[in-house]
Structure formats: structure tokens, C-alpha cells
């Protein structure tokens, strides 16, 4: 009795939050898992169809195409953000004037919403009079006629990936900066006394110190790449009239899932696709962590 009285207020504090969580996160997760084994279009009764949705996905060329676009988008954006984010962090780790203002500027795209930056890049990529065409054709002369960046199947996904990199540099930089600040100055000092040049110092002191930071960033940025949705949704539908256009070239797993669930109203198949994506994300995160650990031990 005394025990119950002791724990009662504790469970009281837990109850409202956990109730909400159970209803809106745990229950949906379980029901979605069950839904992925069913056929349902919101009107007819749900039919249990076993693994059919998953088997269907594995034989669906549009799913495979979307998955390979997802992987391509992820590789390009992760590599781009890591390189440029590290570059920005190394620059700001020096004593240069206006460091805090520069950091603020680099971080600006991070706090701006995906919808707004997608619209801005849609404008910059305009096929007739966009600023990018003007810059590349009239100023730099690297292209000889205007390109409809988002309406061209060969360029659309990569144009969207450039936005993904641009938006993520600031965040990657801040995380790298925190890692760089953990390197003790004495190490650089000692290395210089031993005659190490700037590259040798970077290679043998900075890089090992940034290993944990880089692994963290690799995993988190990969998850972010797999979850890219709003930019692709907004830009492809505005530029071509179809989500995932032109010619499905910007379809990633999430946009394909979206269309199956909310335009085809094939909720079971959509749920199965979302679990396949979650599984892929989990598997890749584990592989990345393993590789990072192996690298660290050699």
C-alpha cells in the first residue's frame, strides 16, 4: 500500500505524455506494420494478404528505380555536405575577422524551412530566365543554351541534390567545429616542433580527432538523405506538374510511397514501402557504424 502511494505520483507524471505517445506513435507503428500485410483503400474492408505487398515491391521496377535514386541522392548529398561542411569548419576554426557573422550566414539556410528554400531554388533554376542559367551562360560561358534544370530527366535529381547540400553545409560545419575544438593546441605545437608541415598535421592530428564526429555525421546525414521528401515534392510537382517528374526521374522511395498511399489510395502497399525504407535505413546505419569501428581499430 505504501509502495503504491509512493509510485502513484510518478505514474501520474508519466501518464499524459505516455498516453499521447501510445496513441499517436506506438499504436500507429503497430497498426501500420499490420497494414503492410493487408490490402486497403479506405472504403472496402481490409483484406489480409500476407507478404504480397512486400513481394510486389521486390518485383516493382518503379520501386527499384526510386530506391536507386534515393541512394544516388543520398551519396551525393552526404559527400557534398561532409566535404563542404568540413571545409567551412576549417576556415572558421582560424582566427579570421567576422568569424561569428560568417557562422551566422552559413547557418542561415539550416533554419529556413524546406518549403521556402525549395521555392527559392525553383526560381533560381528557372529554365528561361533563371539566375543559374544567366550565371552559367552569360557570365561564365560554360553552357551555350539555357537548361531547364528541373524539367530535364538527366539533371533534375542532381539539381535538387545541390539544394540539399547547400542547406546542410551550415549544420555539418557546426558539428565539425565542435569536433575541431576538442583538439588540444599543444598537439599541433608539439608536431610543428618535430617539423610536421600543415598537411601532415591535418592528416595525423586533425583527422583522427574528427573520427567520432565524422561517423556521427555520416550516419545522421545518410538518414537525412533517405528521408528527403519536401524539396523533391515541391520542386518536381512545381516544375513538371507531377510529383517525381520528369519521367519519374526524381522519384525517391518516399515520393513513390506518397503517391501509392495518397493518390492511388493503396495504403497497404504504401505502408509496406515505408517499412522497406525504414529497414534499408537501419541496415545502412549499422553497416556505416561497423565500417567506422573497423577503420578505427586498424
Amino acid at each position, binding site marked *: 500500500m505504501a509502495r503504491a502511494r509512493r509510485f502513484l505520483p510518478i505514474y501520474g507524471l508519466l501518464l*499524459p505524455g505516455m498516453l499521447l505517445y501510445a496513441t499517436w506513435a506506438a499504436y500507429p507503428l503497430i497498426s501500420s506494420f499490420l497494414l503492410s500485410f493487408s490490402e486497403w483503400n479506405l472504403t472496402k474492408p481490409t483484406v489480409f494478404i500476407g507478404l504480397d505487398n512486400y513481394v510486389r515491391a521486390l518485383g516493382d521496377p518503379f520501386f527499384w528505380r526510386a530506391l536507386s535514386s534515393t541512394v544516388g541522392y543520398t551519396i551525393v548529398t552526404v559527400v557534398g555536405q561532409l566535404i563542404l561542411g568540413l571545409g*567551412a569548419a576549417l576556415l572558421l576554426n582560424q582566427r579570421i575577422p567576422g568569424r561569428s557573422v560568417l*557562422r551566422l550566414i552559413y547557418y542561415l539556410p539550416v533554419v529556413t524551412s524546406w*518549403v521556402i528554400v525549395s521555392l527559392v531554388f525553383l526560381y533560381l533554376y528557372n529554365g528561361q530566365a533563371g539566375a543559374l542559367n544567366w550565371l552559367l551562360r552569360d557570365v561564365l560561358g560554360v553552357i551555350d543554351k539555357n537548361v531547364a534544370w528541373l524539367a530535364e530527366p538527366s539533371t533534375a535529381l542532381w539539381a535538387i541534390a545541390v539544394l540539399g547540400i547547400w542547406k546542410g553545409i551550415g549544420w555539418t560545419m557546426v558539428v565539425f567545429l565542435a569536433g575541431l575544438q576538442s583538439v588540444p593546441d599543444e598537439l599541433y605545437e608539439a608536431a610543428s616542433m618535430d617539423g610536421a608541415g600543415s598537411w601532415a598535421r591535418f592528416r595525423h592530428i586533425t583527422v583522427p580527432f574528427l573520427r567520432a564526429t565524422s561517423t556521427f555525421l555520416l550516419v545522421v546525414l545518410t538518414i537525412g538523405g533517405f528521408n528527403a521528401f519536401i524539396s523533391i515534392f515541391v520542386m518536381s510537382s512545381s516544375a513538371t506538374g507531377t510529383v517525381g517528374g520528369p519521367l519519374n526521374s526524381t522519384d525517391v522511395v518516399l515520393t513513390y510511397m506518397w503517391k501509392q498511399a495518397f493518390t492511388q489510395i493503396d495504403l497497404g502497399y504504401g505502408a509496406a514501402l515505408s517499412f522497406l525504407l525504414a529497414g534499408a535505413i537501419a541496415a545502412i546505419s549499422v553497416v556505416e557504424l561497423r565500417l567506422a569501428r573497423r577503420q578505427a581499430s586498424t
Partner: protein
Amino acid sequence: MNVARLRRRLPRWLVFSLAIGLALVMLAPFALMISTAFKPHAYVLEIPPRLIPEAPTIDNFTEAWSSNNFGRYFLNSVIVTAFSTAGSVSLAAMLGFVFARYEFPGRRLIFGALLFTMMVPGLVLLIPQFVLAKNLGLLNSLLGLVVVYTVMNLGLNTFLLRGFFAAMPQEVFDAAEVDGAGPWRILRSVALPLARPGLATVTIFSFLAAWDEFTWAIVSLSDQQLYTLPIAIRLFQRANGTEWGLVFAASLIALAPVLVVFVALQRHFVSGAFMGATKG
């Protein structure tokens, strides 16, 4: 040897010009967005693009605000953001406090379940939350948005606040317990005042996430009266072409509160940078 000389790995002028170059790349899209918002419709796609508008006008702002019920959308966003932020921060404070300071039967299991659902990508929950909202009559409703945004931020906020509460010295709690205070009173009068920096950080991030949320809003809202800013901005993209001046004026109206918070509370953004991680 002094440290300043050692740190100069590249010539100073080169470092500085690279840094300025990158700053220009980051700023240019914003600069064009702002200048376009002040251009009359005829000039929005001029070649070469002008940074300083030839015939600057604020018509886009007045028209964006008065057309399409924009004031209404702004209010919808304020309501949804305020309630969901208040909800997720206060519920997370209760949860985080209990997980950090008390032992009780089921603690590991409940906390583990919370962490597990946190790992699941948000879009996996989109379809089942849609079905649930439909069954509960919360589709096409601002209350539905408040509930989903509260839950969206609850896991991460709980996790972070738990860290703050766990780092507090035991002595302050001992003193309160000797006075016979129960968990509710200790939370209110001891733990919360000490957790102020943590509460500020999670409040800012919850505000940002709710203010900018797009996917659930576009899935669940069909009545235009209920639109929030992120989806309302797109109403200016019309079938016969996008009115860029209006789109960017509307975007800047939506962006303004975010920028004010960002510039005023910068240090919270940097200290909280790691937590924004999962919100791709």
C-alpha cells in the same frame, strides 16, 4: 613558437577570401528572394537579375497579406505552433524528469519503447496517423495538427530534458524531499527553474519544427481556411505561372519570426545543433 603562428596553416588572405566566397554562395539565394519580393510582376524574371529592384514596390507584401486569407493562415500557424510547443515541452518536462530522477517498476521498458519509436523515420507514421486521425475525426482540423506536432517533438524533447534533469546535483532534491515534497512539487519548484536553459532550447526547436511542418499539413488539411503558412505559400503558384513576387513576399512573412528567434537566441541554436539531427 607561438600558437597564433602555428594556427596559420594557409595564408590569411586566402582563408578569408574562401570564407567570403562561401558566404556569398549561402547568401545569394536569399538576396534574390528578398529583391524579387520588392519587384513588380513584370520584372521578376529579368535578365540579368537585378539585386536592387528598378522600381521597388511593397505591393507584393500588401497583396500577399490581403489575398487568399493570408492573415488567417498566419493565425492558424500561430495557434498550432503555440499549442503544440507548449504541449510537447510541458509533457516532455514531466516525462524527462521522471525518467531522470526516479526508479520505478517498468522504467526501462517504457523508456526503451519511447526511444525505439523515436528512431523510426517520421514518414513511416504518416499513413497510420492519417488513418487514426480519420477515425477520430481529426483530419482536416487544427486540433489534429496540434496533436501530431506535439507527438512529433515529444520523444526528442523528453530525451534532451532527461539529460538536463539527470545532470542536476542530488543535494537540491534531497533538501526538498526532507521537506516532504512529492514529485510534482519538486518538479515545479526545484527542477524546472534549474532546467531553464534546456527548456529554452527545446522550446525553440519545437517552435521551429511546428512552424515549418509541411507534410502532415498537406496530407491532413483539405479545407483552405485551415491552411498553415508552409502550405499556404504555395497557393501563389498558379496554373498560369508562378507569381514570384507574391511567393517570396509570403515566404518572407513566414520566415520573419524564425529569423528573429534565430538572431536573438543564436547560442541555443549552436548548443542545440546536435539535436536537430533527426529532423532532416
